[in-house]
């Protein structure tokens, strides 16, 4: 309770709503009620934060629809356990089974989310994942070399020409064994442009820009008139390497780096980039075999701003800015100064003019700093304390989250004046308006993604799930509709109308198209083969039996590979597969798909296996036995069904 009271006290007086922004409960209930048997209006994709995955909710109900396994092993789906999925976790550091996912980002066409893919960053071991929105599965994970703390990622350009990645933590580039105190001399940042194939979404690193050693925090790319530019907030202009809480908070202003990526492309085409030897992994799921393929890449193109005039500028921005958000018109660039008393809003057209007029105010390592007053459109006064992120609606308004005062502040973009505010419970980080970072927001709602829950839900021990809040923005006053819990830490979320995604949803995989080298297309082909100490079981599953379901001739010390093909050809009929004592997880096999479980039996005996996903009235009958004989036994390899 204390925190709530503090949050309310901290709120700036003025336009806060006497009812705390609650819509009348009857009205709110009818707005969020999705009757049994009917569907939600929108999908909300929340980052799972330190769960490493993505969680999908229905809006307006707040119903949890699905978890999408991305960077973290997910035993429920066998993700990171089934052999076909293991390559997806490869990095230059080896197999990394976890990450910290922050920013889901839809692919866009003409500045509008197109429903093809969802990108999300891995913050800890720098990576970007691409989720296929026809299957809600992760199709690609690419590692970002020369980076660390991949936080400013994977924000898209308006046609998804690129998704970007920036180093939140500058590091020695290339990495070397140096004193940490050599930060100012040795540490650098990179801004990475990852090309997206418009047909299949395949990601490749096009080029990196080597930048001064600051903390490059968040990003958005321009749109409309500002298409061709990207904006990256950077803090720690003090270049502190210890106690940043104090030492990186000294300067009144830090920066937004404005990058002319179309010019950068030209410089790359002119051969101005140097090829740098690196090692990073690009992992993708082959759509025909439905198995991961991991490829090492050994080189990356790096541009040095010293060789590339006019490519990058710094816009002074108070103070330790976090979010940087471009409005739907592409003209206004709003920053969230974590420690600022205002929201600075830069003007893209003024920025171009300032560059033309050479309205510079010094430089950072040769990169020009533009004059604050020459680029500023205006400052939003009284924006709450600790403004972080801004999203936009379709009516010319912006919504900024203020963490310290725990509220959302609504302001008019063209005049930078506050028109409404609503408390959030508690300590809001990101927020999401459907389409709110695009050229055509759908508006209607803002979702507050709060960091702290406290008394909002029944207590569940020391940790509570994070709290999201659905807020109506159709009227002059924001109105709170619903609280609902989220998984991990939902840093950012994006929402899209169901009408765009639902019709494209895949229902099953055609067994004819299954090109897995381990597919068993018919029970006739079910068999067991020994290759030295490897035993390959080519197994099928259908309601409700496995073929074969009796296997003998396995020996302690063997590696058994169960290649299970689900022969079902209907929607929502996965089968599970689990083996007693297997030191990994289950398989969850979609209709028409093949998945492989590795089992290394350690004890002689008869070991049961069974289907874990309820499939029919006789699901409990869906089982089998594998007989394991001691090392050196001569039990003949045999298999059967129904004998």
């Amino acid at each position, binding site marked *: 309770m204390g925190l709530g009271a503090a949050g309310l006290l901290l709120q700036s007086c003025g336009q806060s709503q006497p009812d705390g922004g609650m819509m009348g409960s009857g009205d709110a209930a009818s707005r969020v009620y*999705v*009757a049994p*048997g*009917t*569907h*939600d*209006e929108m999908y909300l994709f929340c980052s799972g934060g330190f769960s490493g995955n993505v969680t999908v909710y229905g809006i307006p109900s707040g119903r949890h629809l699905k978890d999408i396994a991305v960077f973290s092993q997910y035993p429920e789906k066998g993700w990171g356990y089934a052999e076909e999925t293991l390559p997806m976790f490869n990095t230059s550091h080896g197999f990394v089974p976890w990450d910290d996912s922050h920013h889901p980002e839809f692919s866009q066409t003409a500045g509008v989310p197109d429903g093809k893919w969802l990108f999300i960053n891995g913050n800890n071991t720098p990576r970007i994942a691409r989720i296929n929105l026809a299957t809600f599965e992760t199709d690609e994970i690419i590692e970002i070399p020369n980076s660390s703390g991949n936080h400013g990622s994977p924000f898209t350009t308006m046609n998804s020409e690129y998704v970007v990645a920036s180093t939140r933590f500058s590091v020695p580039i290339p990495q070397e064994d140096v004193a940490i105190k050599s930060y100012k001399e040795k540490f650098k940042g990179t801004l990475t442009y990852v090309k997206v194939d418009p047909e299949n979404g395949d990601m490749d690193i096009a080029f990196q820009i080597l930048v001064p050693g600051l903390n490059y925090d968040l990003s958005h790319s321009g749109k409309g008139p500002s298409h061709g530019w990207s904006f990256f907030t950077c803090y720690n202009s003090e270049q502190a390497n210890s106690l940043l809480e104090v030492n990186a908070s000294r300067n009144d202003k830090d920066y937004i780096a404005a990058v002319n990526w179309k010019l950068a492309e030209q410089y790359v085409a002119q051969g101005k980039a140097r090829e740098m030897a690196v090692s990073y992994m690009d992992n993708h799921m082959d759509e025909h075999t439905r198995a991961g393929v991991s490829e090492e890449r050994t080189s990356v193109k790096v541009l040095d701003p010293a060789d590339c005039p006019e490519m990058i500028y710094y816009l002074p921005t108070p103070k330790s800015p976090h979010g940087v958000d471009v409005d739907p018109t592409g003209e206004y660039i709003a920053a969230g100064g974590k420690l600022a008393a205002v929201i600075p809003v830069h003007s893209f057209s003024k920025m171009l003019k300032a560059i033309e007029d050479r309205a510079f105010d010094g430089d950072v390592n040769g990169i020009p700093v533009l004059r604050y007053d020459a680029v500023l459109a205006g400052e939003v006064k009284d924006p709450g304390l600790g403004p972080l992120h801004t999203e936009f609606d379709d009516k010319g308004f912006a919504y900024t989250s203020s963490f310290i005062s725990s509220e959302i502040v609504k302001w008019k973009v063209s005049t930078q004046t506050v028109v409404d505010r609503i408390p959030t419970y508690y300590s809001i980080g990101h927020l999401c308006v459907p389409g709110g970072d695009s050229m055509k927001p759908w508006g209607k709602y803002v979702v507050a993604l709060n960091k702290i829950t406290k008394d909002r839900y029944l207590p569940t021990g020391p940790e509570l799930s994070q709290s999201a809040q659905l807020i109506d923005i159709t009227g002059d006053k924001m109105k709170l509709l619903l609280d609902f819990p989220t998984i991990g830490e939902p840093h950012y979320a994006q929402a899209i109308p*169901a*009408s765009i995604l*639902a019709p494209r949803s895949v*229902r*099953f995989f055609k*067994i*004819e198209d299954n090109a897995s080298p381990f597919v068993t*297309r*018919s*029970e*006739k082909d079910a068999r067991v083969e020994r290759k030295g100490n490897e035993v390959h079981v080519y197994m*099928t599953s*259908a*309601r*409700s*039996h496995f*073929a074969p379901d009796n296997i003998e001739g396995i020996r302690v010390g063997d590696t058994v590979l169960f290649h299970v093909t689900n*022969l*079902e*050809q*209907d*929607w*929502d*009929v996965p089968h599970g597969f689990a083996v007693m004592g297997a030191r990994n997880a289950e398989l969850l096999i979609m209709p028409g798909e093949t998945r492989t479980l590795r089992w290394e039996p350690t004890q002689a005996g008869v070991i049961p296996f069974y289907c874990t996903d*309820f*499939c*029919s*009235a*006789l*699901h409990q009958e869906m089982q089998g036995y594998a007989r394991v004989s001691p090392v050196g036994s001569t039990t003949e390899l045999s298999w059967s069904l129904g004998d």
Partner: protein
Amino acid sequence: MIQQTQSDGREPCAPVRRSTQGAAARLLLIPLLAALLFSQGCGDKSPDGTAGGAVASTAEGGLSADELENGIGPAKTAPELGPLNAELAASGQQIFDMKCLSCHRMGERFIGPDLNQILTRRTPRYVMNMILNPTEMVQRHPEAKKLLAEYLAPMAQQNLTQDEARAVLEYIRSPHEAAQAKAN
């Protein structure tokens, strides 16, 4: 709001996974549940508070004579059965081995019925409709309902095309044709 066109037919006594063939599926849920409740001996209560017709009391379940004879579904005209087309039957066998063999074995009762002499019991159209529209068939057709009660494994929707179903029909009529040839 989008109207949902998928209902989950799983009940404690009737664990069935179903996919939808359109909005009609919603209307069919109640007869399905009721039929299953009857067939599975879970008592004769029907779900309360929902719209939907009671189970038709007649054996025909409100079906037309044509539907009773030829099944319900997309096979609206009788497939032409000439002399056995070996090539078509071979392609039908490939499809059958992949998508049907898990439940049906020619010449024996398995998860589902033996199909060996199916055309002595069913019309070709009925077979096609059972392949193409199994979910509705086991909900509404008295013969299919009887079989569900006997076997408890509902005929699976394997999403064959009309052409694939026709090829499968050619394959499963092969033994029937062979028997006919012998008899002649």
